């Protein structure tokens, strides 16, 4: 079976699950709750009413379930023997999840615009580049989401139990940036030059893109963070696929 068939099969499975739709509804609901529970400020709009936090949580849960369901339902055997090469399965799953991340990001961007227009019409989109900061912040979140997906797929191959992978993913989301800042901030200048390239530091891209002041904590420019995200995504994709290729079923 070729890549196109793999993509169409994975899409078929993805769209027939309730989880992805629930994820979209949960994201929009949480954004709405955030918008009505506190005063709508410029910062709230730029962060899409805490979109990065909710979005990453949702893709961790959906991504882990989408991968591990094959082991849970023993469908992995049929999936593997019916496909000529294993890479097409792994890549198709990643592409579908990346597309989902893109859809979530776009919807949250549009919903932020809607919420801002409804609840904070006094704030101007032109004021302090509000709209462009929102867009680049969302783009950063989407890129971090893709990096996170490659890590989740790798973890799913290492520990095919969805609760374990989801827990590890959530720990990464909630503590990753903090650990990165802590390790870099408390290190000697020589170590900083090494530690600033750790994968956890790349998670700061989504915060730094709309707010350049973060650069004093990350010690990396936007383009360096972007290069780091691309590099680490490729790295985790490669070792995740290597593990998947040698998976015993």
């Amino acid at each position, binding site marked *: 079976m070729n890549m196109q068939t793999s993509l169409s099969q994975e899409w078929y499975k993805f769209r027939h*699950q309730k989880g992805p739709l629930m994820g979209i509804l949960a994201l929009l609901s949480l954004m709405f709750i955030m918008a009505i529970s506190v005063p709508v400020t410029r910062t709230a709009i730029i962060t899409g009413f805490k979109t990065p936090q909710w979005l990453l949580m949702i893709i961790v849960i959906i991504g882990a379930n989408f991968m591990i369901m094959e082991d849970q339902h023993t469908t992995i055997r049929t999936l593997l023997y019916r496909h000529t090469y294993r890479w097409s399965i792994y890549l198709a799953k990643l592409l579908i999840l990346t597309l989902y991340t893109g859809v979530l990001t776009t919807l949250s961007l549009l919903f932020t615009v809607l919420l801002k227009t409804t609840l904070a019409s006094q704030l101007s989109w032109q004021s302090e580049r509000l709209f462009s900061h929102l867009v680049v912040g969302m783009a950063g979140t989407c890129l971090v989401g893709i990096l996170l997906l490659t890590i989740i797929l790798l973890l799913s191959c290492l520990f095919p139990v969805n609760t374990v992978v989801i827990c590890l993913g959530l720990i990464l989301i909630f503590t990753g940036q903090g650990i990165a800042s802590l390790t870099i901030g408390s290190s000697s200048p020589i170590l900083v030059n090494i530690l600033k390239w750790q994968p956890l530091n790349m998670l700061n891209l989504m915060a730094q893109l709309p707010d350049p002041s973060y650069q004093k904590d990350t010690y990396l420019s936007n383009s360096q963070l972007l290069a780091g995200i691309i590099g680490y995504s490729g790295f985790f994709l490669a070792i995740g696929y290597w593990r998947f290729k040698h998976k015993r079923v």
Partner: protein
Amino acid sequence: MLKITDINVWIKHRQIINAVSLEVQPGAIVGLIGPNGAGKTTIMKTILGLMPFSGTVTIDNQSVTETNHTGLKSVGALIEHPALYPFLTGYQNLALYAQDEADLQAIVTQLEMTPYINRKAKGYSLGMKQKLGIALALLNHPQLVILDEPMNGLDIDATILVRQIIQQYAQQGTAFLIASHILSELEKVVTDVIIINNGQVRLNQPIATFNQVTAQRYRLQTTDMAQTLTLLTDHQIPFEQDAGYLNISQTVLYTAQTLCFDQQIQFKALIPEQISFEQRIVQLLHEKGGDEHAN
């Protein structure tokens, strides 16, 4: 069709399959028989390229390896449990892999799944899931079908139906490799028997040859049972008495015949004691170094 040559499979430094070679011809229904842990499922997984192995597996002269499944394009399989997505209906589970809508519909009708095919698979009974698993294996006109315990959870009607469908597909040229512990069912469909134990092939024969086993013992009745009994005792020929018959071994049958003939005693009945397919399998497993019984 399928040719396996000298395959060896190791799992965690333990050899599970040891130099197994076998062939399955188009239209053949090969029964893979052996006790639990003999290596049946591992052989099936190896054919499907799901295990690392040494040796060669070819299907229609196309090599199958753990990383290249090009040779498996015309193979269907049901391994251990039906692999179904519970959030999809039975129809959607089939549609996921079906290349031809008409073929899908034909299989659904053949396996009498129409009443529940549009229900979510998570609500299926064990038998319904098993039928759907078999349907998945039969999709897209496979040239080789591998079935591991296909009769699990099936009621009598479904068992008969599946047996008929297997025979029907085999007549059209599809080869089957079937592992089952239900030997009575297997006996009704197989054209060849492969007995495996401790990861090695112990016997590989057409069923016709397998069934041509010389009876090991005979039940004998003569015109003078009392004198026959004396004769056998005097000549130290072992026997047992059973409901008016003398049971003797096939190895001493001709000696007993000569002794009786010399004393002008005629045989009234000489009945070979046939052993069942199941008994023969158990016997072979014991004879050929098996420690466990076939279930």
